[in-house]
């Protein structure tokens, strides 16, 4: 089982995503933004960071990278793709996921341990969780406020495509407390909080995030 981890200029959490894949006993394969090549991976993680500095809009420039053309094609064929934080922003900009992420309502970068509810335990990245499980993972972002127009939000809710929701407090003003969403097939998932930073209680608040990387193993084996 090979999980590809993309590095753009300015990507930061690629080492963490690769470590999380290894903790799940998958092989982590580095993917370079400038290559038109997914190197035979079975799933892709678009990690967090500040691709191209995020100066224009988070993810706006990264979506044009050569490797993203391949990711978009592969996602259309059903390959599991996970976008974390900046990766989520990139997937939205690239049109793989609906909506957009804007500046936090409080206007500050927020780094804190955040409770989430797993609202959809049926996606390629969430089958190892009990439905409605509550997990504690780090959130660290300045532009994490999820927005979409009303009909899109209604559709996401109706189809159960809200995968993670903030519990307790809404840290950034997201619509409907949305922390993460999935595409219509449940293969592409994006979320603002960082499951890859919660794989070991030594370095994270919990190991609650590991389930996502284990889930994708099942998804690939089954597919």
């Amino acid at each position: 089982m090979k999980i590809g981890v993309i590095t753009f200029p300015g990507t930061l959490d690629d080492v963490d995503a690769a470590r999380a894949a290894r903790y799940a006993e998958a092989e982590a394969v580095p993917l370079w933004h400038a290559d038109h090549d997914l190197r035979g991976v079975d799933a892709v993680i678009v990690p967090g960071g500040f691709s191209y500095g995020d100066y224009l809009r988070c993810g706006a420039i990264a979506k044009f990278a050569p490797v993203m053309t391949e990711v978009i094609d592969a996602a259309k064929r059903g390959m599991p793709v996970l976008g974390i934080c900046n990766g989520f922003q990139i997937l939205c900009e690239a049109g793989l996921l609906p909506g957009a992420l804007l500046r936090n309502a409080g206007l500050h970068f927020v780094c804190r341990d955040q409770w989430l509810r797993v609202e959809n335990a049926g996606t390629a990245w969430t089958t190892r969780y009990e439905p409605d499980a509550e997990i504690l993972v780090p959130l660290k972002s300045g532009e994490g406020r999820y927005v979409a127009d009303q009909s899109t939000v209604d559709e996401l809710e109706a189809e159960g495509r809200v995968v993670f929701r903030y519990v307790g407090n809404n840290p950034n003003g997201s619509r409907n407390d949305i922390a993460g969403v999935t595409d219509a097939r449940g293969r592409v998932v994006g979320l603002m909080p960082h499951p890859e930073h919660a794989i070991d209680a030594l370095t994270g608040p919990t190991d609650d995030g590991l389930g996502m990387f284990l889930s994708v193993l099942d998804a690939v084996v089954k597919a």
Partner: protein
Amino acid sequence: MTTTEHLADTVEHAAATPDTAQPFRELGLKDDEYARIREILGRRPTDAELAMYSVMWSEHCSYKSSKVHLKYFGETTTDEMREHMLAGIGENAGVVDIGDGWAVTFKVESHNHPSYVEPYQGAATGVGGIVRDILAMGARPLAVMDPLRFGPADAPDTRRVLPGIVAGVGGYGNCLGLPNIGGEVVFDATYAGNPLVNALCVGAMRVEDLHLAHASGTGNKIILFGARTGLDGIGGVSVLASETFSGDESAGKRKKLPSVQVGDPFTEKVLIECCLELFQSGIVVGIQDLGGAGLSCATAELASAGDGGMHVDLDLVPLRAEGMTPAEVLSSESQERMCAVVEPSNVDAFMEVCAKWDVIATVIGEVTDGERLVIDWHGQTVVDVPPRTVAHEGPVYHRPIERPADQDALIANTPDALARPSTSDELRETILKMIASPNLCSRGWVTEQYDRYVRGNTVLAQPNDTGVLRIDEETGRGIALATDCNGRYCKLDPYVGAKLALAEAYRNVAVSGAAPLAVTNCLNFGSPEDPAVMWQFEQAVRGLADGCVELGLPVTGGNVSFYNQTGSTAILPTPVVGVLGVIDDVRRRLPSGIGAEAGETLLLLGETRDEFGGSEWAHVVHGHLGGQPPAVDLAREKLLGEVLAAGSRDGMLSAAHDLSEGGLAQALVESCLHGETGARVVLPSGADPFVMLFSESAGRVLVAVPRSEELRFTDMCTVRGLPWTKIGVVDPDAAALDIQDVASIGLDELRTAWSGTLPALFD
């Protein structure tokens, strides 16, 4: 643009026009300094040379007022203290061997004045600068810390300055992917108009990869890479841009530019990865960062550290602005630039790595076999100097030193007569007032803006006493870092105050279970031209150096920032001390939160005396500063450190929290809140509860001991001669901090008081 404006002041021209008046005073040079430059060169300097000498001989770059005192660090460092040191004072940053083949490098630097002018960018570029220092050693930068000082928390100017500085530290560090693992936020009226922004960076490399920058090897190429060079940060030198030196902005000349630099963390992040790949592929002789004084500094330092001369062609420098003069190109402080020395056969490979990362790289010169640094522009020589005279042989001052006339009065004004709380109601109220005061309340408003998780190796960060990082994922070996300084103690007695700063940082490292290994510092003081300030400085340096000898730790580097004052009022003397420790397995680190196991015993290690001089209580409740600071006993601190390390190694401890500002009351409240658990405390019978709760005696730590280990641990303390007092138990069911006969305060009430202050002031 007319051609005359491009006509530079060449060496030839300078030699032919000895009597041309030069604006050396506007550039901050004294008459005799200017005379010395003329003597060194045997002629008047060109504009470009004058620009170089004036920045390199500034207090900031030359350490001209502090040099004679800083020598004391070297003189007092023994071979034994140097045991783990791979590079020390004089290099970009100190380097120590932490074992398992790892070398760790760390340094703290000030960016105080730029952060007052433009808080966000000043703080951001402060972080950027210190990170490049670490990078230049060949290390991967791993984390940052930010000791900060501000004016009164409720002053209008603090509302302007603090949010900008915090956002700048976060904006730059977060975007670089460096976890922020600690720092300080301290408020005092003396910092109004002169906030302190100190930034620390730590990095690691394999021991064999240590790189010391120098330009040797005739024919080797000098490559400038990173951002383009623009007009930012030129400051005083910009007067050279105007023919008349009148500073007249309306004369159609270039306006006097702000000396503000704008940071581009994305470019720096890419530069980091690019440099590390260059080091890894072994294609560089050395890399030097460009910081204060820009190319002037980098070329002069590289050349004077090497064995030859250097020739640079300024026309090759990629520029961002049009019509820059050679003096401006040389002194621009544009950020995110580095300078490399590369063998000719490796230049192509070097360029390939830079292209991969989209980093602009340009050969701008080469190492020559002469002894001079020669810089050409438009085919003519504009600089021809012996590089050592620029970089290392600047002026040295023995500034007058005088103990302040009012020092005795300050000491005589003891806190003994201040009204103390005595009833349980008064004590309860004092606890709540103290934990909500700006210097003791939660720093969450600040630290929430910093990424502490990135790279996945942060084992402890806020709200713990120390930042702990895993360095080796296989062995679990890691480091611990803390910075501290109580400026009020230093004001009362700078010698003892500096030792106390060292003691606190040492203790903070020790409470994590790590063994302290090395020291860095950032000495923030007022004007060196004030003999009273020089006295504080001299005393602080001696105190810190003598303290390091007692603890057996080397000072591996540091930074001096003078002229921190508003009008004639200097800031509190603020020698920020950073201590680095090593922990062989980060899994045994100790957090500050109690309650990992129900029923843990709470022990107070050390002795509590009636010590309130310079205390937070005197400050918060009475606005008082006077008397003597707490006594310092470094032998005791060392013993405490050994006991904590042993306790952590043998699993005898489950949490530890150092006692400092605010005393035991503060430590108890924080330990409960961090651990989200209650506790029942019984103060020793016969002791004065006020003194027990609020005294700031040094050398004390609160520890939580699993019940099964209590006897073993207390026996060890007794055998080793470390006083201990059992003061209570952890009580997870209570949801309150219950101090018998004093007060029982619910955790919710404590948390509300402790965490409400900064949001109320700054949101």
